[in-house]
Each structure stands twice: as structure tokens, then as C-alpha cells.
């Protein structure tokens, strides 16, 4: 009974929300826009240094968003490792001797690394790019970890922190160098745009993979090291 009493208002709220949303989507769909952004984008695409318009938006026209978004990712990584208490990363539970996993690893990991490389390389003129490549790279890292392969660089230490911040730092350096040359923050010199974007994408791939992997690794908790808390009063 009590459950129904809590469900009813929630249902009502959600129904009202969906109908309001659907109504305004319909209203918006039948009007016309005043700004033709895709057209504008097409006109400026050749100045961006890459052919894939999505990459152009992400890493040139709206690169500030992307810079901050990597910042968000790094924050999540920092916050994740700051609450983690896994000093020993080789969770014994994870050292599986699962033959299936082992076979999977042997075949899949090289394939995934290859895929990540391809995605990164393709990003400038075809679908693909740093995020996808980074995710695939992270996924192969997860597989390796599930297979119990030790990855020392993931210990909470300077290497981990360097890895977390590398992509972000390079991106930031590029952004500020352009400002030092008298341009705006984040403005690439047109002739260098392509090179810079490729460089940024490469380090971003590594960093994205690193952050995601670090978050995956810091999620498990074991009883290894508890004492500090409680006593902190």
C-alpha cells in the first residue's frame, strides 16, 4: 500500500514530464531555424585541418568543450583514486586461471590494440577518433587486468598521476602556446592545425584509456588496509 502511494505520484510526474517533452518536441519540429549551423560548418571545414566534421567540431571549433571534458574525466580519475584503498592491485580473486579468458586474451588483446590504433588514425578523415580509440584501449587493459596481468603503472604513484594528466597537459600546452603567439586561447595556426590535432588526439587516447582503466582498477575494495579511518577523529 505504502509502495503504491509512493509510486503513484512518481508515475504522474513522469507521465506529465514525457507528455510535456513530447509536445514541445512536436512544436519545435514544425518550426524552422534561423541559423544554419551545418552550412556554416561546411564552409569552414577546410580551415579546420581535418576532414571528419565531427573531429573538426570536437578538436577545433569547440575544442574548449573537449579540453574541459578531458578535465572532467581527469577529475573523476582523481576522485576515484582518492577514495580507493587498494594498495595491492593484484586482487587475488581476479587472478583467474580461466582458460576461456586466457584464450580470449591471447587473441583479443592484439586485435583490440590494432583496432585502437586504426580508430585513432582514421579519426581525422573518417569516423573514429581519440575517444573511441581510448575506450578500446581501456577495454583491452580491462581484459588484461581480468586475466591477472600485473600492470605496475596503475599503482597509485607518480606514474599513474602522470598518465592521468598527460593528455590534458599536452592539450593545455597547445592551447596556451597559441595564445602566446598572439592568437586567442586555443587558436591553432592554420598550417599546423592538422599536426596539432593529430598530436592531441594521440595523447588524449592514452590519457582517456588511462583514466578509465584507473577508475576500473580503483573500484574494487579489499580489506587490506583499513586502519586509518575511524581513528581519524
Amino acid at each position, binding site marked *: 500500500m505504502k509502495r503504491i502511494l509512493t509510486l503513484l505520484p512518481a508515475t504522474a510526474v513522469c507521465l506529465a514530464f514525457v507528455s510535456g517533452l513530447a509536445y514541445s518536441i512536436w512544436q519545435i519540429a514544425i518550426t524552422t531555424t534561423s*541559423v544554419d549551423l551545418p552550412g556554416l560548418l561546411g564552409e569552414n571545414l577546410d580551415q579546420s585541418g581535418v576532414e571528419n566534421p565531427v573531429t573538426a567540431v570536437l578538436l*577545433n*571549433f569547440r575544442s574548449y568543450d573537449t579540453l574541459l*571534458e578531458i578535465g572532467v574525466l581527469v577529475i573523476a580519475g*582523481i576522485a576515484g583514486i582518492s577514495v580507493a584503498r587498494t594498495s595491492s592491485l593484484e586482487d587475488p580473486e581476479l587472478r583467474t586461471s580461466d582458460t576461456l579468458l586466457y584464450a580470449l586474451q591471447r587473441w583479443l588483446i592484439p586485435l583490440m590494440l590494432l583496432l585502437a590504433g586504426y580508430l585513432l588514425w582514421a579519426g581525422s578523415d573518417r569516423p573514429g577518433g581519440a575517444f573511441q580509440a581510448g575506450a578500446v584501449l581501456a577495454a583491452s587493459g580491462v581484459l588484461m587486468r581480468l586475466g591477472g596481468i600485473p600492470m605496475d603503472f596503475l599503482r597509485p604513484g607518480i606514474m599513474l598521476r602522470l598518465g592521468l594528466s598527460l593528455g590534458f597537459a599536452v592539450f593545455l600546452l597547445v592551447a*596556451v602556446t597559441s595564445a602566446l603567439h598572439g592568437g586567442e586561447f586555443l587558436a591553432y595556426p592554420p598550417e599546423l592545425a592538422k599536426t596539432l590535432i593529430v598530436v592531441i588526439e594521440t595523447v588524449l587516447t592514452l590519457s582517456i584509456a588511462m583514466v578509465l582503466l584507473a577508475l576500473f582498477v580503483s573500484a574494487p575494495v579489499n580489506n587490506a588496509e583499513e586502519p586509518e579511518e575511524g581513528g581519524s577523529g
Partner: protein
Amino acid sequence: MTLWLMAGLLFTPLAWAVLTLLAGFRRGRVVTWLGIAIQVLVSLALWAVVVRDGGFQYPLGGWQAPLGIELRVDGLAVTFVLLTALVAAASGLHAGFYLDPDKQWHRYFWPLFWFLWAGLNVVWLGNDLFNLYVGLELISLSAVGLVALGGQSEALRAALRYLMAALLGSLAYLLGVALFYGEFGSLSLSGIASALGQDSSGDGTGFALVLMLFGLALKTALFPMHRWLPPAHGIARSPVSALLSALVVKGSFYIAARLWLELGAPLGSLALAQLLGLLGGMAVFWGGWQALRQRKLKQVVAYSSVAQIGYLFLLFPLTWNTTEAAALQAQQAMTLQVISHALAKAAMFLSAGNLIMSVGSNRVNALAGVSHFLPFSLFSFGLAGVSLMGLPPTGGFAAKWLFLQASLATGQWWWLVVLLGGGLLSAAYVFRVYRASFVEDSNIDHFFHPARRLEIIPMILALLSLGLGLMAEPVLSVMALTFANGEGT
């Protein structure tokens, strides 16, 4: 010159986040001092530039508005940038001595602190709806990380609660952005405003505005959606609480206010405006009442934030369809309230931290006798309280006075009840803390003495908040500055 300042303003916090991530706590502290110095100087210089020449648009990457992201650097924005520099500098300096350097997780305080600062600057300067979304996420996630720092069970619960509320709020906001983009094909706030001005065919986007305001109000902890705030602000370390209460909740409110002032006239409605004002009024009473009933000192201060945030929402009814003069007064009142609350609340949390450190307990009753030992921190706490009560000549008084005038000018006399009642309630909870600290019964005489520098920082903030009432005129004249080439004031 301006280009350098802008680059410095955007670059420093992000770069310092990386630097401090690589350093440990102690080295991070020294690095942070340098960063704070740069950031304060840059903010001051930018403020001076805008005061001299008026505001400007700053296209990032050299791409103009609909295609790229433009920042909007006007009087209100630089005022808040400067306020952030002040409060964050104070909290950062305080944290450097307050946090225990030997707890290994405190090293992560610095990078999160700098990311938070970066996110706040993004929000103050933002003029692109999606960019503002990313800025909001930057703020929320680093704030959640700061609350969770240390990873104790209670802190984690507060952080999770905060995270869930923040995520829901961001999604509501993003959904509004999606609808706006569908309607106007642009993400630039001023672009949308001018498109609405030309042919007010904003059908369907009224709902988008409602969604965004809901999401932002949730993140600002407006009354019925405030329940995540007290645990998070209460459990965090005091310098973190100061940052969260003084600045973080203001970030989302600021976006809501910008949206309302730009798009409220065509898309808002009387009912929406009055509803927001009403919720704000209820927040003032509920927050004040709850602050009076809390046992823990920092919970008192946290609930007081719920109440003080309530006042800000009077902006909505007082600027909807009112005369230009009244609307301007309401905006000025909002600005002063943001500034004075930020200063006073930061002072309060920092001095509350000192008091708790000194008596070794976070309960209000444990303060008995502390008035002999820590008069300085207690005095800062009280001074900040005077500003929250809205007594002259504080900034809080100036803000409430302007709200009062705007209410009278628009004939919405019912907000007077909120303004007077809220003041009385805040007087009551501040005096309750005072009374507890003057109780003489205690046989405890081993108070711990925090370092003098920990006590001076909140005192400076409290004095600034007190003096704001006297400097209100110049502050307000800067806030009204719009763009150099625009119509201006």
C-alpha cells in the same frame, strides 16, 4: 593585454590542477600559493580592464559565436570572477594549514580545488549553453570528489547523494539545451536571445526553460530539493564546505539567473516566476527553522545556506514583467546577496572549522566555554552572522534593503514577510551558537589552539562582508556594465 589576461585566467587553474596532481600535499601547497597569487592578480586586472573599457566577447580558438564558443566578459561576470578569486584564495590558504598533510589522500585536495576554480570561471564567463553544461559538470564532479575525500562511510553517503542530485540536475539542463538547439540551431545564449527578440516563435521552448530552471534549482538546493545539501556541506572538511556554500551553489544559480534575464521575458510566465519566488521564500523559513534545530555546528551553517539561497530566488518574480527600475534593483539585490553571502558563509565555515578543531567536537553544545579561549574565531563567526541577519551596515543589509525596495516598487508586498521573518530566524540561530559558547559550566579546559593564521583568514572575509554595505555603490556600478559596443547602462 586582454588576450593575455584571458589566457591567464583560463589557463592557470587548469595548469595548476595538473601541477598539484603531480606534487604531494606539502609541495602542492607551495605551488598553490603561487597559483593563487597569479589568479588573484589576473582577476583583479581583468576586473580593472572591464571597469575601464566595458565588457567584451572573447571567441575561443578564434571562431565566432554560432560555430565556436564565445565567452562573455561583462561587469557581472568579472565581479563574480573576482569574488571567486577572493573566496577561493582564502579557502585555499586556510586549507593549506587546516588539512592534515600526513593523510595521504589530502594530496588530491589541490587538483580538485583547482579544477573547481576552473569550472567556476567557465560558468561565470560562459555564453554557450553546452559549454555551461560542461562547466557545471566540472564543478559538480570536483565538488563531489572534495566531499568524498578521505572516503569515510558518512562522507561517501553525502557525496553519493550529492552526486545523484547533481547528475539529475545536469541532465534536466542538458535536455533543455537539446530543445533549444532544436528550435534555434544555435547554442549561443545571446544568439538565442536575439533570435527570440526578432520573431518570438519560441513555441515549445518554454518547457525547455522550465526544465533548465528545474535542473539548476536542484543543483542550487532550492527548498523542496535541498535535502542533499546539508549532509554534503556539513560533512566536508571546513575549507571545502566554505567553497561549496560560498561558490558552488552560486554557479548553478548564476546560470539560472542569466537564462531568466535573457530569455525569461519571452518564455517565462507569471506563474513560474511567482512559484520560484514562493519556493525561495519557503526555503528562507524552512532553512532558518532547521538551522535552529541542528545539533551539529556545521549543520547549522549548512541549513543557513539553504535559507540564504532562498533570498536569491526572489530575483525571478521581481524581474518578470516589472518596470526597468525595479528589475534593476532586484538584479543589484541579487548580486549583493551573492557576494555578501559568499563572503559571510566562507567566513562562517572557516571559523566553524577552527572552533571545531579547538573543542574537538562538532556539536553546538560542545562549544561551552570556548568564548574564553577562541574569541577571535568566535568573533568572526558572529560578524559573518550579522551580515546574514541583514543588519546595517553589512552587505546582507544592503541586499535585503534593495530586495525590499524592489518588492514595494512592484507591489509584491508579500515578499516583505520573507525578508523580515528570515532576518529574525537567522538572528535566532546565530545567537544560539553564541549562547552555547558563553555557557560557563564546562570543566573541560584543554582547548586546542589553532594557528593564528587560521583565525585571521575568516576574520578578513567577515570584515569584507561587513564592509560590503559601505562599498555597495561602486560594486553595483561595475555589475551593471555591459558590452563596450552595446547599449550599456
